[in-house]
């Protein structure tokens, strides 16, 4: 197969049926001494709707830029639908809605879509794309006169024009109000139901929870959690038991029943668990632990803990 088709990229599944929409192996990106992306491995199958969740500066945009071929990896490999990003882009297989910029203020909404459509070998009907993005009625308006939300819808319409297999959205609702955000996601979700693969970056937990089938949590350029919304939530729920336990070892603590993750800070141990009572009972009866504290955390806190700067949690999953 590869000998007859030069397009096939490095992806392992390229030769057997459907290649993954995104395939990253040991992907790294350095800017000088800053490691923006560190050895990321990720496979997104066709048809998945995946949220890339993480705080600002976590490496979401750097990763997306490499998937789109806008920047070259410092290390590792990228394959998009079994091809290099450039090959996929030239075929209109992948498109993106970027956060800001990328529009000419002196063109009208309709002209911008027409301009974009004419660049592809195959493209969807311009009026239809405008309708799907909900901006058909402002087709004659200059882009510079459109609101932030309208401009974002235009970017969405432009991304639909090549009828891509993979749609990437980088923080698409930044600066939108709640209502605008809800409507925008309604259009995206509606579109994803047709079987398009969608990868979106966000730092809003609710957005990831509401619109993605799968959440990939990224922090400091590394994937710290990857699973369904429910899995990530369960990871985020539960409580932390904190106790003073001199001489605790990693091995000994792992044996504590119900412990999901552990951390040792000198004489203090932190055990995260879905069943904190069990952990507490064990610690008080079977070990010399004292000064016990049990704290619960909300979804938001859990997210912060997973993605924040302070290392309150150990390795997950």
């Amino acid at each position, binding site marked *: 197969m590869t000998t007859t088709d030069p397009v096939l990229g490095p992806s392992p599944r390229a030769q057997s049926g*459907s*290649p993954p929409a995104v395939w990253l192996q040991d992907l790294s990106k350095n800017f000088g001494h800053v490691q923006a992306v560190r050895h990321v491995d990720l496979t997104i199958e066709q048809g998945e709707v995946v949220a890339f969740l993480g705080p600002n500066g976590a490496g979401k945009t750097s990763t997306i830029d490499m998937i789109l071929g806008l920047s070259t990896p410092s290390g590792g490999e990228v394959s998009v639908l079994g091809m290099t990003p450039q090959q996929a882009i030239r075929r209109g297989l992948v*498109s993106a809605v970027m956060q800001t*910029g990328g*529009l000419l*203020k002196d*063109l009208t909404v309709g002209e911008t879509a027409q*301009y974009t459509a*004419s660049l592809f*070998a195959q493209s969807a009907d311009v009026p239809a794309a405008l309708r799907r993005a909900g901006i058909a009625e402002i087709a004659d308006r200059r882009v510079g006169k459109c609101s932030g939300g309208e401009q974002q819808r235009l970017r969405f319409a432009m991304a639909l024009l090549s009828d891509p297999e993979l749609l990437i959205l980088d923080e698409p609702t930044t600066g939108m109000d709640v209502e605008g955000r809800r409507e925008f996601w309604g259009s995206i979700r509606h579109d994803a139901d047709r079987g398009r693969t969608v990868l979106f970056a966000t730092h809003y937990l609710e957005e990831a929870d509401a619109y993605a089938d799968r959440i990939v949590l990224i922090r400091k350029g590394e994937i710290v959690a990857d699973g369904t919304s429910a899995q990530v939530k369960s990871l985020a729920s539960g409580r932390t038991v904190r106790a003073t336990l001199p001489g605790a070892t990693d091995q000994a603590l792992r044996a504590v029943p119900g412990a999901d993750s552990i951390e040792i800070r000198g004489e203090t141990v932190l055990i995260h668990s879905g069943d904190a009572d069990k952990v507490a009972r064990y610690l008080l009866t079977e070990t010399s632990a004292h000064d016990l504290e049990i704290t619960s955390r909300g979804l938001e806190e859990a997210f912060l803990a997973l993605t924040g700067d302070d290392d309150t949690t150990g390795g997950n999953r």
Partner: protein
Amino acid sequence: MTTTATAAELSRRPVPPLGGFSFTVLKLEIRRLLRNRRTVIFALVTPSIFFLLFGLNAAYANESAGKGNVSAFILISMALYGSVLATTSGGAMISIERAQGWTRQLRLTPLSPLAYVVTKMLTSMVLGFVSVLAVYIVGFATHKPSMPGYLWIVTALCVWIGALVFAPFGLFLGYLLPTENVMQFMGFIMILLAFGGGLFVPLSQYPHALQVLAKFTPLYGVNQLVHWPLTGGAMDVWWVVNAVAWLAIFTVGAVWRFRKDTARV
């Protein structure tokens, strides 16, 4: 969910020919350029007004200049000024589009950077053509410029093509200057170069040292060449050397910046 696409299906999707060059885009770009009031004033109105100011002066307008009169000579100068501004503006637009993030957006489409630049160049050539046409129509309407009928056409074409030397210059500046005010800056440079090339004042009226210096400026060679069908006489090799040398310098500069800009980081 619909079925997923196989590798063979995916690679069957066509890549557009010619790096994504399209006449729809060219049409939109021309419409957009002519809608820009500042560009139209720069490239169409200013040179026409300059002709009306300098080309009709009774003191010298009817004096002989080769196969025509001085008014015709000035008409050619102003048309060159206008079309050079027009061609340069094509490159300057790139600077503005970079600032707005448009060139980055285009990298998410099949459009190759080369096809983009070619589109811009063709757009500015159309504007250059309209500029020459505008100045010649204004000149014709005043009944002052006098030259044989065929020379109207020949010189107009020479001016239009000669202005192409400045297409890479605009591109070079466009990539060099990351500002939204690049047009004003360029307008200023063009006035200096127009004086240097003898478009506004005949070089013979300059002091000797300045005359020598002027022969090295970028508009000098082109200006002499486009007037040659009218003035006649022997062609000076230096004119060609000047024009070709500047074309080469601007092209090298533009290619250098272009490569730097499109390189992936």
